[in-house]
């Protein structure tokens, strides 16, 4: 469980990035953190594995206050996949890249071998086991970065902009993958601008603006509220836009799911046909 109490953070340069944030994320929750550029999303999640320590307030992860332990200790529980894979890839082979963190955490060689194989299979990277990560395409590098974090099986997983530069198929794979993690009881946090992706996943949404939390609730509620969205320069998902336009005809405007949209429309047409 992650508990944030009145968190303030000011960068050494004097920029106040977080201005009093309080929230609670339960085990096994799926949370999307959204908001315009510079809203403080990445700054917030960097507090969850101790990369940043609060200027004021407290962050408690699994009952441990983040100021009391090192990043390495927290990282064992909290996996953080950075936005740009090129900021972490350095090893000669994909295999070594994935085992890097495992060696840091002191796993035994036989366990490392097993975990690496498991992670490679999970993300469909088996054929690149002995390839240099620098030879891979952008999307593949992103998957290697993800695999290198998943390998130590953290309880909480933070993904910073996982959908950037991914084609639709890869996004869909990622979505399936997150759902799979959820069934294993993992907590997943996603920092993203991708409204359509969030609409399809339907997680809890935290909306940030200017270092503050301006909305916290189900995607269905937050992403269909034009007033809140306008405040944080987010355009509603396409299907919601359609239903907002149709709301004058008596349709509900809080729809983000394609399947639900289809059912609603069919029902209305059915009624009209009768």
């Amino acid at each position, binding site marked *: 469980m992650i508990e944030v109490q009145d968190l303030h953070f000011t960068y050494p340069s004097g920029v106040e990035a977080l201005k009093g944030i309080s929230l609670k994320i339960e085990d096994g929750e799926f949370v999307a953190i959204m908001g315009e550029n510079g809203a403080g999303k990445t700054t917030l999640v960097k507090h969850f594995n101790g*990369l940043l320590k609060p200027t004021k307030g407290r962050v408690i992860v699994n009952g441990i206050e983040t100021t009391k332990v090192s*990043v390495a200790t927290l990282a064992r529980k909290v996996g953080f996949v*950075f936005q740009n894979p*090129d900021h*972490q*890839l*350095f090893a000669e082979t994909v295999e070594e890249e994935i085992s*890097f963190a495992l060696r840091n955490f002191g796993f035994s060689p036989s366990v490392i071998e097993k975990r690496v194989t498991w992670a490679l299979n999970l993300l469909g990277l088996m054929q690149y086991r002995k390839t240099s990560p620098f030879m891979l395409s952008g999307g593949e590098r992103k998957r290697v970065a993800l695999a290198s974090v998943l390998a*130590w099986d953290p309880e909480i997983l933070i993904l910073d902009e996982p959908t950037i530069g991914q084609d639709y198929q890869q996004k869909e794979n990622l979505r399936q993958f997150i759902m799979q993690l959820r069934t294993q009881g993992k907590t997943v946090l996603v920092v993203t601008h991708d409204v359509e992706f969030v609409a399809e996943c339907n997680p809890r949404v935290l909306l940030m603006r200017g270092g503050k939390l301006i909305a916290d609730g189900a995607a269905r509620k937050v992403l269909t509220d034009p007033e809140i969205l306008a405040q944080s320069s987010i355009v509603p998902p396409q299907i919601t836009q359609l239903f907002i336009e149709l709301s004058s005809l008596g349709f509900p405007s809080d729809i983000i799911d394609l399947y639900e949209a289809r059912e609603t429309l069919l029902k209305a047409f059915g009624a009209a046909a009768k």
Partner: protein
Amino acid sequence: MSMFDGLKYRRVFSPIHNLDPRVKFTYACIIFIVAILFWEFIPLLVLFVIQVPFVILARVRREWLRSMKGAAFLASVIFTVNFAVSFINSGYMITFVALEYALAMTFRFLVLVESFSIFFLTTSPDHLGLALEQTRVPYEFCFAFTTAVRFVPVLAEEAQTIMDAQKARGLELEKGNFLRRIRNYIPILIPLIVSAIRRSLELAEAMESRAWGVSKKRTNLYELKLHGSDYVLLTVTVVLLVAAIYVRLYLPVPRLAEIFDYFAH
């Protein structure tokens, strides 16, 4: 990092910022030469103090103080080492000569940092490149120079992100013995170098697609021209140099011990 912070250019409008970079560079160099001419404390202190009005005029007091603070550590090392050496040489006695020498060496360093910090704080990299160009340095070199300066903060920021990413994968930089600690930096250096090379290739492609180097003879939108204030500073600097040489050669420079004696009697 804090010492380099004190060298980073900030866009402020002030009479000092408007001066010609070439004149400012000459000024910094001559201050340096004058500082080397003297090994007595009093003239070096004077040299240090007369530059303070420049700092105030340029409105970079905060940044300047930061660079001075950054230099303080090295300055105290210089003081300690010099003082210790003359302390031992003079047979374990604290003498005015030893104190003066150590203070003078410290202030020589501080004067150097001060003058160059004024130069870098008040000169934009663009102006620097322009100055290089107009002193007939080939344009390729000028461009490489300004680009290098321009990318230093970008690289520093990137290094921080990489460090965060590797720490998030359990890397502990301060762990292990000396050799191990150096090895700990490999996962940070490799991504940094790779991305620097990638970026330079991308930059080259972007430049070529914008027709870099098409015309052999380049013209500039801004031409550097010496104005009245530039001539004033240039004159002051030259006078300072001449006066310093004159004082060095023909006038006695008061020493700390003499001043102390004078007041003691």
